[in-house]
């Protein structure tokens, strides 16, 4: 039982549902108090104003700098460490359960400690994004490392392959698709870390804008900024999924 629907019908329903959503948003904004919800028209006008004044670009750039600093650091640490586990089986067995525990840890609980130890600079915020993002990368890369077939390493070694060639031709190609899965998951978590850092450490970027809106009961500012955050989130997660798909085809799972 799959309820049918032609392609044009699906497209019409999608458009209608978006139009309905916009209408509901507008009505809800006009019927409720300004402090609870703002109409779509006001939100879009505010968004335009923020964009024209250059505030939006500056805030978004600040948020993205924070996100990519933490994310890049997480990949740079997590992926090589994970690949290393393909060569160091004992080390892998020893630390795997701890990586799993840290993967399941709500890292946001560490934010108050980071605040009182490191204060209000840029570095503690990068640390927060890093902590959110590194364990998905590490955990998934280790899973890749575990699945590297020993025969491949043995063949390479019987051809007297050096360590660097072994990494370049066997280990990295084999674990990269797994690392990409980790990176996709890390993007979602890193975004949460980014906003959490901007809220609870020194206010900056898009998070600061939402906070300012909430303190002044300025719902149009809050909603306009939230729209930008949602758009960034969708774009980054789609990018992550596209990269993952690109490399899972390479792994041969996407057939």
């Amino acid at each position, binding site marked *: 039982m799959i309820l049918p629907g032609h392609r044009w019908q699906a497209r019409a329903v999608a458009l209608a549902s978006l139009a309905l959503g916009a209408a509901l948003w507008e009505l809800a904004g006009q019927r409720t108090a300004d402090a609870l919800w703002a109409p779509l028209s006001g939100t879009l006008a505010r968004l335009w104003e923020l964009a024209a004044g250059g505030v939006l670009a500056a805030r978004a750039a600040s948020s993205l700098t924070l996100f990519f600093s933490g994310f890049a650091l997480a990949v740079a640490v997590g992926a090589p460490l994970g690949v290393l586990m393909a060569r160091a089986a004992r080390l892998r067995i020893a630390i795997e359960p701890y990586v799993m525990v840290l993967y399941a840890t709500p890292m946001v609980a560490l934010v108050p400690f980071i605040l009182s130890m490191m204060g209000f600079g840029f570095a503690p915020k990068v640390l927060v994004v890093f902590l959110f993002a590194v364990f998905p990368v590490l955990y998934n890369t280790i899973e890749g490392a575990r699945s590297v077939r020993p025969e491949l390493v043995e063949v390479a070694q019987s051809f007297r392959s050096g360590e660097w060639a072994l990494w370049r031709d066997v280990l990295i190609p084999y674990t990269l698709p797994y690392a990409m899965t980790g990176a996709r998951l890390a993007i979602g978590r890193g975004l949460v870390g980014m906003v959490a850092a901007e809220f609870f450490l020194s206010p900056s970027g898009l998070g600061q804008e939402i*906070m300012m809106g909430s303190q002044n009961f300025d719902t149009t500012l809050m909603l306009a900024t939230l729209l930008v955050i949602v758009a960034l989130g969708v774009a980054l997660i789609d990018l992550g999924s596209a990269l993952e798909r690109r490399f899972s085809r390479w792994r041969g799972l996407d057939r």
Partner: protein
Amino acid sequence: MSRAEALAAVPAPRLLDSPWFLRLAAGAALLLAWELVVRGFAPGYVARPSGVARALWPVLSDAKFLAAAGATLGAVLAGLAISIVAGTAVGMLMGRARLVEAGLRYYVNSLFATPMVAILPFATLWFGYTGDARLAVVAFAAFFSITVNAADGARSVPREYLEVAGAFRATGWRTVLDVVLPASLPYLIAGVRLAAGRALVGAVVAEFFTSVPGLGYYILFNSRTFKHDEAFVAVVVLVVAGVTFEALLNWLARRYLPWARRS
């Protein structure tokens, strides 16, 4: 060669090859490194394993702490229950009815990608600085991962199953309950696992923001007054909760869904 000699020639299993020994040694090494680094380089108030161990019992036997832990974990479970019921229903519909999928896809996908921290200020606008705001954030954090996975599961039910159900003239309802739902359970469990992690994060950030009593607020309050060892006990409880839930889901999947082994 005598029997005794032959037995002696078999190499004894070496300690270094025993996984449990390796794990314990790594755990001890990590704790030791943490202890030494904090003692050597950090101010006195920073949490370290010996301090956390000393604080463990006094904190865990404190009625106020237990109430806080109960409030946070209760909110997480309540939010998860709401999201599992609602998310499964919406996800099943999206997976099986093309037009529902077309209508909801943009909303579900974009809210799934929204960092749940960003909606905190809205939750406090609507629900005040209360436990309801926390529950709303937890449910928001969990709902979309369950919906997305339930829809994936419902979509990937093998066509043959549905054909058999159709051949036996099963009604739509029976098909959903007896065929589609069981067949998508592995996806649902993956969704619940993801949702549980997000729900914990949601509860903690909501408490940071609203100062509603709970584990998150306990951490915030004690770390502000430089009682990091006490605050860290709350982190340990959160970690134990997360890991226990994960183990429970794995057990459920192995026990009741043995056909859905991870490849």
